[in-house]
């Protein structure tokens, strides 16, 4: 164990965070929690690991296959948490039985993913988020969106855009075409690639030309409120209209609150759809290259834990958020500037007394003595 290479070696994807980054991260947590507490979200502290089954049930094999696993003394399979929402959902489903709905909870912490290709996504990443459980109405969707917007504003994140989508468009297409799971996966991949010609050709093989054409148009629609009008004019089935209604109502509330300029509709957005069931959103800002946060409605998750309850939530990726704030030159003042008290053995006692007084005044103090100052290696 004493070999120097082993001492300095760090497993890929693992980070030690120090200095300015810690200050920036804690400041983001504080600000977001202030907003969340303002909306009456109570913080929940979650365990670092739980039974693997919880994550497999909650998230499906996609995440459960990428966990770090180990066993307890009875041979039960445990996993480091790959996700925080599943833990919140399980807790609400099993321990909040008698409490009035909705329940508002928020949390922060790291999640662990045992990814096969190190160097791609980090194995450990920090999230901060909130869940609103037990309300299936649009005001809950809108609330979650506004909590996210308010957090971004309070953080001083500069210009940002929230892309709104809806899981209903994809799900209704899958149902209408009666796709098996392999075909569903293919449709997902084609939509996610954003290749229009491929989508049109694939749909034409499975339905009449008119239907294929209007679905292809639907998934291309993106922009402001006019998108919803255009979607309606495609004359789609009732299930599609329900999704359009959802988005229209949320947009209308945002418009009245003058928050609609942050929003952009994208009916072809399909990422994370094995998870979300209704409105979805992703937060983008220039210079980050990936979404700094995401959220949406997930009405199926709690059913996996024996409680059929609707829920909506969102989370920020803290690493990306800090990357964004740094570009905005908006990371909180980072320099530690303590008052230095120089002392040697004669006046050490006085220095301690002096330091106590200064600290009581709220100052930061560092006592420097000659004998305790060792040269760095």
């Amino acid at each position, binding site marked *: 164990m004493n070999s120097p290479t082993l001492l300095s070696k760090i497993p890929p994807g693992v980070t030690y965070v120090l200095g300015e980054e810690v200050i920036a991260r804690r400041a983001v947590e504080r600000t977001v929690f202030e907003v969340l507490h303002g909306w009456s979200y109570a913080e929940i502290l979650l365990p670092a690991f739980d039974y693997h089954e919880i994550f497999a049930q909650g998230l499906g094999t996609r995440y459960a296959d990428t966990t770090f696993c180990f066993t307890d003394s009875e041979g039960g399979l445990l996993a480091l948490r790959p996700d925080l929402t599943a833990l919140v959902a399980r807790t609400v489903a099993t321990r909040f039985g008698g409490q009035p709905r909705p329940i508002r909870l928020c949390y922060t912490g790291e999640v662990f993913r045992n990814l096969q*290709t190190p160097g791609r996504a980090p194995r450990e990443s920090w999230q901060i988020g909130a869940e609103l459980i037990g309300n299936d109405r649009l005001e809950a969707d809108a609330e979650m969106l506004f909590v996210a917007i308010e957090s971004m504003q309070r953080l001083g994140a500069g210009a940002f*855009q929230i*892309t709104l989508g809806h899981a209903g468009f994809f799900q209704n297409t899958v149902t209408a075409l009666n796709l098996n799971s392999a075909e569903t996966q293919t449709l997902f991949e084609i939509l*996610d*690639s*954003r*290749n*229009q*010609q*491929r989508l049109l050709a694939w749909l034409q093989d499975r339905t009449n030309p008119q239907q294929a054409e209007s679905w292809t148009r639907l998934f291309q629609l*993106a*922009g402001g409120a006019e998108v919803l009008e255009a979607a309606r004019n495609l004359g789609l089935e009732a299930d599609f209209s329900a999704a359009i209604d959802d988005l229209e109502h949320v947009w209308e509330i945002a418009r009245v609150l003058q928050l609609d300029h942050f929003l*952009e509709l*994208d009916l072809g957005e399909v990422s994370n759809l094995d998870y979300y069931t209704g409105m979805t959103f*992703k937060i*983008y*800002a*220039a*210079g*980050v*290259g*990936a*979404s700094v946060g995401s959220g949406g409605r997930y009405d199926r998750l709690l059913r996996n834990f024996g409680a059929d309850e609707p829920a909506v939530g969102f989370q920020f990726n803290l690493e990306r958020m800090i990357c964004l704030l740094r570009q905005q030159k908006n990371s909180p003042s980072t320099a530690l500037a303590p008052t230095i008290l120089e002392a040697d053995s004669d006046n050490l006692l006085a220095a301690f007394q002096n330091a106590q007084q200064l600290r009581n005044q709220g100052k930061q103090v560092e006592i420097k003595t000659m004998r305790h100052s060792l040269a760095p290696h």
Partner: protein
Amino acid sequence: MLTIALAKGRLQEKTFERLKKAGVHADLGALGSRRLSVEDTSGKYSFLLVKPGDVPIYVEHGVADVGICGRDVILESQPDVHEPLDLGFGACRLVVAGKQDAINQGHNLLSRLKVATKYPQVATRYFHERGTPVEIIPLTGSVEIAPLLGLSDCIVDIVETGRTLVENGLVVFDTIAPVTARVIVNRASFQLQRKGLLILLAALEPSAEH
């Protein structure tokens, strides 16, 4: 402005040609030799020329908004990006090839096949899906000589005409995937620069009229 990463080498000239056809006026020839990046005269685009395998990395991380590269490097690195357009040029195939007698060894499920390739991820996935145990030997060039020197039983590589394979006495056992040049787009850029992107994609389409 959209930053566009282009792949050096095999696709380079055809990519420049297609951009020209799409109405982009830029001194692309200066890339790689004199300049790190060039802008087009309209100031809408900035171009970088990088190694093909690096294009998906630039785009996934958002250093470039758009990339043009072969489907072979996309399959190898599986970047988390959109792939909205097949440009149609640069057609070739990713194949498994080897000396004629090696195919018998492939059918023997107990033997471990040695595979030399520039595409270790593609090769691993292909053989794992077929339950064939393999030892991947990653090489960076001249892959086709590996079987001749006894370094590997077969290779996974791209072939355009197949002439190099024939010259080296190799035969194609299976096609893994057809390959053409593709446009890939960063996910955040797709949302934040949608208008400019859709204009570029329409201009780059193989059937676009100019």
